[in-house]
């Protein structure tokens, strides 16, 4: 094969159109062998679209890809793997009931010998400092260990290019450090890495070059080591970011939301059991629950919102034991809830925005539902107010929820609850997928609500967000929760140790 030029992969003038949206508009990205190349941009900027095309999961509308100077078409992921392109997705594609070796075997082309493969897995994983037990069942592994499986799976195919989509979002700070070492070593061996992340400090630390995308277009190629996190953020957003103003919290507020030794059995083989969770959220404060994804946050949210019931005394709202009450009763007590999943949980995809207002407000607002009849005008008024106050961008006057971008729908579902001025607000991942400007608006609204005497509980995986708005911070891991410490006493290191389970009570020796 003749070598044309120094680049391993070139994406030249790539265009990808979805309907009327130009997700990628004339995007050019060049990656050299041995280079860790950061690919930055807000959610919806078009990063995932491009890497999916590189990995063969999507086809470009126009433009071409070159691999070691040769023009290529990548029709599907199998072809990409054959070329030497590996990808670690943000959401893992592992079968929880199978072992590590079985999961890896499934991705291998052609026949294989499980014994030989297991040996190879053990050797490669040890060699790279990613220890894995090939016979372990995936369901028993932590999220960090599961990510290792995905990485080892790529390494076994001796990739020339590794694509990583937000790999540290699910890791503790300590696990992330370990990952950075592996990536640096791979780069040293000549493997190129395309690294997608929102965490600008780690990009500065790890990456050799960066391509920044905004609204589907490339806005800059920079050397991240010569930039500051603030200057990178400015390039991504295209302007300065509002700094959340957190006035001093009201002291001695009364307890509005109390979790008292809340326990809840797991409702599926791979769900998390909640064990003995206690927490007081007082009027006037924002309490945050940090934790790596999948450690019981969803289960805890369901128990607080009333989608799952507990013993009455395990959850007390404004002094009233409510653990056995339904969702509507809790809303009537002044509770408001925003789940992590917007489409299909927080909103019905095929319903108009005004109908999605009815979803959470039918029990509490008589101008939305009166004596069993829908008040279409009332719901439309609320919808318009939320859209205006939270700058929800949309194509039609009253579009279906699924027509909105993720960030705009998030603004809508958060705004729908904030608009009620609830006494108790519980939000799971308040700014997930929202651009930096809108995230600041939402965070400010959460702080402002608390300072007016409401109790605000935020469940988040974003430590920056937590440090920005929380007065107290608790950490959840494997269904157990630490004490809530004042934010001023917390550091990323301490949270990392708690995420790894330092506070957990072990009922039996491991």
């Amino acid at each position: 094969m003749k070598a044309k030029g120094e680049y391993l992969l070139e994406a030249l003038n790539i265009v990808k159109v979805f309907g009327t949206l130009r997700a990628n508009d004339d995007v050019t990205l060049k990656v050299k062998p041995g280079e860790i190349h950061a690919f930055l941009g807000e959610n919806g900027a078009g990063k995932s679209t491009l890497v999916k095309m590189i990995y063969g999961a999507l086809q470009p509308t126009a433009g071409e890809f070159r691999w070691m100077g040769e023009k290529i078409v990548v029709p599907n992921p199998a072809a990409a793997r054959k070329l030497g392109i590996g990808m670690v997705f943000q959401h893992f594609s592992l079968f929880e009931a199978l072992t590590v070796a079985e999961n890896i075997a499934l991705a291998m082309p052609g026949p294989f010998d499980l014994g030989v493969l297991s040996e190879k897995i053990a050797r490669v994983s040890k060699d790279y400092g990613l220890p894995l037990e090939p016979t372990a069942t995936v369901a028993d592994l932590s999220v960090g260990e599961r990510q290792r499986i995905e990485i080892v799976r790529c390494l076994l195919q001796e990739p020339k290019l590794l694509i990583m989509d937000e790999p540290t979002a699910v890791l503790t700070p300590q696990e992330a450090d370990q990952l950075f070492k592996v990536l640096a070593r791979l780069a040293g061996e000549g493997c190129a890495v395309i690294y997608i992340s929102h965490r600008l400090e780690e990009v500065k630390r790890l990456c050799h070059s960066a391509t920044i995308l905004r609204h589907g277009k490339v806005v800059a190629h920079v050397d991240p080591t010569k930039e500051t996190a603030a200057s990178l953020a400015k390039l991504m957003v295209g302007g300065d970011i509002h700094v959340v103003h957190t006035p001093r919290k009201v002291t001695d507020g009364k307890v509005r939301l109390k979790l008292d030794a809340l326990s809840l059995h797991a409702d599926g083989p791979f769900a998390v059991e909640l064990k003995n969770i206690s927490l007081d959220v007082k009027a006037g404060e924002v309490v945050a629950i940090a934790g790596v994804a999948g450690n019981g946050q969803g289960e805890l949210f369901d128990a607080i919102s009333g989608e799952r019931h507990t013993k009455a005394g395990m959850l007390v709202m404004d002094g009233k034991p409510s653990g056995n009450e339904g969702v509507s009763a809790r809303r009537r007590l002044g509770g408001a809830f925003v789940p992590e999943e917007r489409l299909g949980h927080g909103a019905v995809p095929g319903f108009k925005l005004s109908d999605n207002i009815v979803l959470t407000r039918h029990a509490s607002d008589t101008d939305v539902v009166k004596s069993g009849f829908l008040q279409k005008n009332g719901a439309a008024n609320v919808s318009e107010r939320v859209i205006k106050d939270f700058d929800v961008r949309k194509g039609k006057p009253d579009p279906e929820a699924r027509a909105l971008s993720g960030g705009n729908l998030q603004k809508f579902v958060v705004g729908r609850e904030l608009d009620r001025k609830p006494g108790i607000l519980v939000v799971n991942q308040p700014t997930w997928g929202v651009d930096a400007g809108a995230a600041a608006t939402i965070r400010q609204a959460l702080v402002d609500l608390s300072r007016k005497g409401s109790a605000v509980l935020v469940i988040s995986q974003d430590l920056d967000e937590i440090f920005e708005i929380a007065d107290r911070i608790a950490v959840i891991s494997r269904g157990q929760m630490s004490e809530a410490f004042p934010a001023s006493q917390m550091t990323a290191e301490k949270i990392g140790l708690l995420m790894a389970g330092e506070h957990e009570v072990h009922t039996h020796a491991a």
Partner: protein
Amino acid sequence: MRLEKRPERSNAMAIASPFIAFALTIVTAAIIFTLRGNNPFAALYVYFIEPLTALWSIEQTLVKASPLILIGAGLSVAYRANVWNIGAEGQLTAGAILAGSVPVLFPQWQSPLALLAMIILGVIGGMLWASIPAILRNRFNANEILTSLMLVYVVQLLLDYLVRGPWRDPQGFNFPKTVSFSGWQTLPYLTSGIHAGVVITVLIALALGLVMSRTLKGFEIAVTGQSPRAARFAGFSEKSTVMFCFLLAGGLAGLAGAFEISSVVGQLQPQISPGYGFAAIIVAFLGRLNPIGVIFAGLLLALSYIGGEAVQTALQIPDKITRVIQGILLFYILACDTLINYRIVTSSPVLQKA
């Protein structure tokens, strides 16, 4: 070849879908008639046009449409909630049995109250029979498609036993049927052909249309069907929605059974319905799962019954043709609806590399 989800669905096509399906059914029917050696135009005229040229056959169409609309309206609500009640035929039969118990056991009771009792018992009978698959789904997560369908055959055999055994008319020359109902044990007629049940049917369908579009109950049903997780988050109980949908559709099917035996059939006999409960499934889909749309769809399906009888007598085409045409119609509706949301892609990508 595979199906790929369309990025956006066309609203115009969603409205046009039942019409396209009907047009395709006509074309297919014409091909079937041609293959049998009939003149397709003459056969289509006898099937679909001629019944609409005489008053008596228009009345017949309305009377046949009544049970289809009644059951179809109930099913359209259930299907919106993703509650797949396939057993309306059995619920109709159960309603007919309970309603029929009044004239069979109390033949001397001649009063408007007797008719009212029959109607109420008909609704209760349908509800009771429908509550079985609802309870099985809610308690044991049993698939309601199977349970509701199997229960059809159970209750049909029960009816068979009753009319051949304990409820047989002693003066009936050993025919498997009960006494003929008369007086206040039958529905009053508005014209020579149309009974009061037809009017009640239309009123119920309109009321259900209002419930679905204007009330919280209708909203709850639509949310449960589209997004069960969001329904739970909204504070709606899936189990009570399942029960509500079964009781509603079952009750209306039972009412249709009571209407049939107190008007057209006039007694209990082994067969009291030419498959209205199954044809109503087509009616519900053809009517876009909207109780108002079901009124029009019910009229079209009723025409397919009348037309089937017409081609049988005029052209000696077997009456099975009715089921064939109804089946083809349902097939085309489902195909059109699928192709509105998906498109067929025939690509076999190959790796091109220099």
